[in-house]
């Protein structure tokens, strides 16, 4: 196992159609035209692009990297068969077999016979959504789950109403870039009083290593609705850096709930030299617009050369709840600056933050969080717990918990701890007959228990294995 540090590092030979490198207003127009987009969307993109040009790349995160040449990135990459004016495939039969095989190799078979039974999957390959499984069953329940480009054509009114409503086009540098050039992603709408009958899942795969990936996800849970959604991601091994700048927007109306889970395993770069790897600059935000609604973010971050990501909740509806459960593992030369923002606007709003950072080798692992209790948020409460585990002596872990409380009755609690995974701990297990692999799994599962316990069952085991495998490579 240890001679195979990143088993998703293969790439698939497909003929790609791209718009070439570079970013100008024409690129933005061409992306929109290639997808036959309605006028409102082109307008949205152009507005974002105009603002993006006036913005500066943020420098406050605890990460360092050489300047990104935004003119040397391809902003659109699609398989030849998908790019001929059609925004997506009509059926799985049109999808080239080598792409289907890619997803099968990643453990996500898309064909009828082999697809996962309890989970509906939307598979995104470079810039294009390849296939969405279980469409009929979802349709019968009134649930919309499709690629973003399909939604743009079939449900333009929903997109126009909600797109950019949580993350405004000029929210930050990378969100503005995404809003200008985003390619595909997933769209979910759960109608009132509907419990989505399946787990929904999107699997993102970067294949073309010269292309950036800019996907867009929008999930709306209408009154009293519930959905659990999982996102997974991998990329081929490459000595170049790839830019991934996604935007995810979630909205819950009255008494609705969205549970959003991520297992992120983008290629992290060469473990020894730090060469290559994905820059994962992502904006994820959910708005609890309705009373007593709930948004829960769970993330297991195990890849990317650099992670810059703060899944956040705007707790606007009275009695709404925001949760953030995170495991971030960094090894090799990885740098992660991740955390959350909980913005309490409504009365009796509650938030919970559980963050587990594991740093190994020469990596840097930062928790950065903001808890803000605004003036009208009577009775608001937050509980934050940040634990770090260090493996070896050359890594770094930091926590920056910012608290901004504008009311005297707010209850804000914070706990933090730092521990070390020592050779003696591993030897203790081994001296009782337990293999190093099982020892690591037990130690890591124990450390991350509070987070792994809230992941959908199918993915918890996968996440546990992934964390163990990554650490095994670091303890040798």
């Amino acid at each position, binding site marked *: 196992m240890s001679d195979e540090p990143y088993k998703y590092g293969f790439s698939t030979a497909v003929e790609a159609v791209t718009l070439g490198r570079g970013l100008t207003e024409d690129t933005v127009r061409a992306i929109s035209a290639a997808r036959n987009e309605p006028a409102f969307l082109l307008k949205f993109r152009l507005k974002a692009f105009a603002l993006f040009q006036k913005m500066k790349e943020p420098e406050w995160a605890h990460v360092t990297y050489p300047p990104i040449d935004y003119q040397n990135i391809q902003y659109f990459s699609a398989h030849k068969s998908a790019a001929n004016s059609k925004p997506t495939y009509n059926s799985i039969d049109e999808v080239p077999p080598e792409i289907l095989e890619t997803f099968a190799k990643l453990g996500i078979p898309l064909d009828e016979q082999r697809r996962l039974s309890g989970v509906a999957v939307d598979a995104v390959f470079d810039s294009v959504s390849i296939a969405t499984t279980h469409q009929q069953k979802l349709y019968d329940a009134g649930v919309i789950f499709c690629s973003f480009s399909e939604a743009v054509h079939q449900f333009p009114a929903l997109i126009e109403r909600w797109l950019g409503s949580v993350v405004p086009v000029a929210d930050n540098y990378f969100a503005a870039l995404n809003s200008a050039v985003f390619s595909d992603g997933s769209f979910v709408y759960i109608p009132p009083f509907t419990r989505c009958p399946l787990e929904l899942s999107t699997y993102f795969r970067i294949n073309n290593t010269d292309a950036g990936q800019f996907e867009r996800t929008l999930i709306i849970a209408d009154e009293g609705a519930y959905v659990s959604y999982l996102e997974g991601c991998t990329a081929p091994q490459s000595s170049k850096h790839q830019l991934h700048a996604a935007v995810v927007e979630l909205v819950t109306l009255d008494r609705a709930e969205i549970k959003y889970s991520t297992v992120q395993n983008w290629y992290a770069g060469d473990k020894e030299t730090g060469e290559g790897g994905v820059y994962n600059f992502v904006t994820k935000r959910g708005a609890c617009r309705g009373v007593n609604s709930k948004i829960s973010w769970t993330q297991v971050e195990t890849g990317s050369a650099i992670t810059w990501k703060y899944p956040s909740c705007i707790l606007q509806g009275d009695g709404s709840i925001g949760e953030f459960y995170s495991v971030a593992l960094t090894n090799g030369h990885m740098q992660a600056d991740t955390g959350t923002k909980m913005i309490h606007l409504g009365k009796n709003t509650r938030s919970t933050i559980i963050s587990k950072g594991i740093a190994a080798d020469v990596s840097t692992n930062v928790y950065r969080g903001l808890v803000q209790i605004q003036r009208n948020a009577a009775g608001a409460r937050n509980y934050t717990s940040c634990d770090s585990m260090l493996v070896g002596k050359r890594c770094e872990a930091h926590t920056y918990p910012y608290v901004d409380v504008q009311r005297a009755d707010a209850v804000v609690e914070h706990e933090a701890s730092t*521990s070390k995974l*020592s*050779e*003696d*701990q591993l*030897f*203790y*297990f*081994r*001296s*009782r*007959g*337990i*293999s190093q692999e*099982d020892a690591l799994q*037990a*130690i890591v599962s*124990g*450390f991350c*228990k509070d987070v792994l316990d809230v992941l959908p069952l199918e993915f918890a085991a996968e996440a546990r294995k992934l964390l163990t495998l990554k650490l095994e490579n670091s303890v040798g």
Partner: protein
Amino acid sequence: MLVLDNLKVAVGDTNILNGFSLTVGAGEVHALMGPNGSGKTTLGRALAGHPAYTVSGRAEFMGRDLLTLDPETRANLGLFVSWQYPVEVPGVANAEFLRLAYNAKAKSSGKPEIAIKDFPPFLVQKIAESQVPPDYADRMLNAGMSGGQKKRNEILQLHVLEPTLAVLDETDSGLDIDALKSVAAAINAYRRADRSVILITHFQRLLDLVKPDRIHVLGQGRILHSGGPELAAKLERDGYDWIIRG
């Protein structure tokens, strides 16, 4: 059962054991005594296979050459070395650790593993046998335990794993009087004609409760003096000086 012949143990350039020889037969109890820093803990950890040590000479356990085996294989072959200062592992449940260890051994000896649901009643029985408080089933692995509680937790492991040879490193240090009696009783309960014990200790009071067949005094990296159980009283009275000075 255990044959150590001219064993040398070094850390880097420092020799800690130099020509250590000892034979332990089935069913025997050997006490290993000696001044602080004489290498008693080092012997145990080297036998367990700690990677920090360079070991040469001969070490045979159950007819196998110990020095060629990795730590988990030694353990699963029936060697148990308790720790003088058991390490804390926050987040890992004691019961989970015991189940993993039990199943690792069962698996390597071709016996059936125990299912998660069958483990709690098994553990209750082992807790009774080893005379530790019942809440050890719900504790974390040494984390949040006092020094004495950690020592007793090692005795619980001894009963769960039922090794062929137990090397117990100062298990009696840091125990209150009642705990000392419980630990001694638990060690005696573990003893059988086919199980052996090496007791590392400084005190006669343990040897009064667990009768050794032989007592050895370690110094200058090897055994300087051996005797029967009566040696304990003399050491208690006169200390080690007369042996070390020769």
